[in-house]
């Protein structure tokens, strides 16, 4: 996990670092989601806010980003808009994303999950993007 400030621009050549990048400022949520996904065999990397996630996404490639919206430093919507290239995003937020924001984000977000969701729903959403099992 590396920190850093968002600067925008295109991403350098990267290799896939993990299946899922979990971005959430709530440590317990982040950890529990990490545990659930790992029990199903997915590799995960955690980021505690949008700014950290921005740095990771510039350096590494992920199968999908499980993204919280309201976070300090850089929120989820701003993170998506700051990057020109981005893996598929599954929003996982306690807040509803407004219709206007959904329109702006377009198809960069493939699924919206409204916390709390069951582990089964969470796994189903991740599997829906990455396939039935973890990427090897």
């Amino acid at each position, binding site marked *: 996990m590396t920190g850093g400030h968002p600067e925008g621009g295109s991403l350098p050549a990267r290799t896939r670092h993990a299946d899922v990048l979990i971005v959430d400022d709530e440590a317990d*949520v982040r950890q529990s989601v990490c545990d*659930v996904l790992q029990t199903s065999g997915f590799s995960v990397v955690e980021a505690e806010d949008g700014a950290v996630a921005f740095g990771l996404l510039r350096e590494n490639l992920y199968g999908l980003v499980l993204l919280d919206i309201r976070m300090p430093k850089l929120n989820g919507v701003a993170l998506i808009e700051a990057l020109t290239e981005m893996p598929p995003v599954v929003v996982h937020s306690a807040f509803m994303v407004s219709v206007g924001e959904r329109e702006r984000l377009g198809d960069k977000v493939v699924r919206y999950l409204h916390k709390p969701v069951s582990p089964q729903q969470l796994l189903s959403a991740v599997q829906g993007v990455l396939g039935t099992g973890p990427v090897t």
Partner: protein
Amino acid sequence: MTRGGWRPSPLTVAVTLVVAAATVLGFVLTSRSVTSQNQALLKSDTTQAAEYVSSIVSTVGAPLQALASSVTLTNGSPADFDAQAKQVAQTPASVILARKTSTGFVVTAVVGKGFVVGRSPGPAVVRTLEKAGTDLTPGPVHYDGKTTTLGFALGPPLVPAGMAIFEQLELSPFLAITATQGAPFHVLRAAVYASESPTTDQLILANTHSLPLVGLTAEASVTVGATKWWIVALARSPLAGGFANAAPFIILGVGLLLALAIGTTVEALVRRQRYATDLVAVRTAELDASHAALVRSERLSALGEMASTIGHELRNPLAAVINAHFMVRHTLGSTITPDVDRLLRMAERQTTRASTLADNLTAFVRQREPDLVPIDLGVVVHEVLETTPPPPGIEVTVDVPPLTLRADCDQFTQVLANLVVNGFQAMPEGGTLRIEASRRDGHVVLTVADSGIGVDATTLERVFDPFFTTKASGTGLGLAIVSRIVEAHGGDVSLCNGSAGGAVVTVRLPVETSPEMARR
């Protein structure tokens, strides 16, 4: 705000009556004044007429006095009397010389007709001759309906003692004679009688045939020698003048018109004031309602803000706890003991309940605009009962005819689901839930009635307030969400106690909800 119709206000009636009463009073007082003035003038004119008649009559005595002097000079010679009397007695007059005897008066000489020398001139004439003296003494008067007969006598000392002369005249009372041509008679209808009471056979003169005179009359005495005649008069036209006599009626007319005008003005002012008062009351009521709505809106807004914060703050912990339950169950796998499994189930159950609360809070706060589509009421009822089946001991009866309305399918489903769940929860000992629907006045009316214990008055007042609940485990948002959704559809919802007990919730939704109505 129309009231009163054509009925005037009490103030208008009072003011109009006061002005009208003042007018009538003015009319009466002025009438009396004018009448009094007319009477005074009539009396004055009648007195003048009497004096005029008196002066005319006195001129009649001059030739008779000259004859008396001649009788004295000739010492009562009948021959000389005849010669002198012929100058006095012009037709139709008769003149006699009478001498007093022991049996009364006897005619000694006569010029004219009606008397015989050597005989008595008659008792009435004798009574006149008995009273005759220096002053002209009028004799008996008699009106036979055509002609009036009257006479005058003179006695000693104008003639020798024991003698008297008497002139008897015949005249038509209605012929224009000097006495009734005088100025005072121009404005009067008058009659002169020999008696004080206007007796017909005592009529001497008159300038009118309308006898006896009736109405506002005046009387005055006419001095004739030592006795009196009487004149009775009536004004030909009001003596005080036409304007003076019209004045009371002018006052009455103008006063009544004034009363009408003032009454109309007062009524207009009263109605304006009443209208203004009513308008103020209506505006005040509107302002009160608006203020109450604003207060409620602000209260709901504050509640919504709080609900939103609580809801969102619950979601992250719940997400972590749910995942943690999953991990515990996953970690223990088949080694889980029944006690741990029971405790885990309890934790999962309560977590699900907390999640439902968070969902309700979100549903209450984030009410989206209805997406109106035609929905089949029967289908929605069926789906709700399928996803929310009745607990054991509760029977559900459905009487919903084929009805289609335009509504947001998800929101309407939530309305019905909330009402059904509420009904089930109101009957912990079991009972019957009746779901009925009908179409009335362009609305679909849906009722959900339970057979529970019903609700008390306090609950009835607050049952749709958010966070108000009588249940130990309720969030108090179910009916608040129902109310919000129904109002967003342009409908209304109410709750009352059914006649057979239990609570009845009635939802009225317009069949054709317009987008504008739905956004209200």
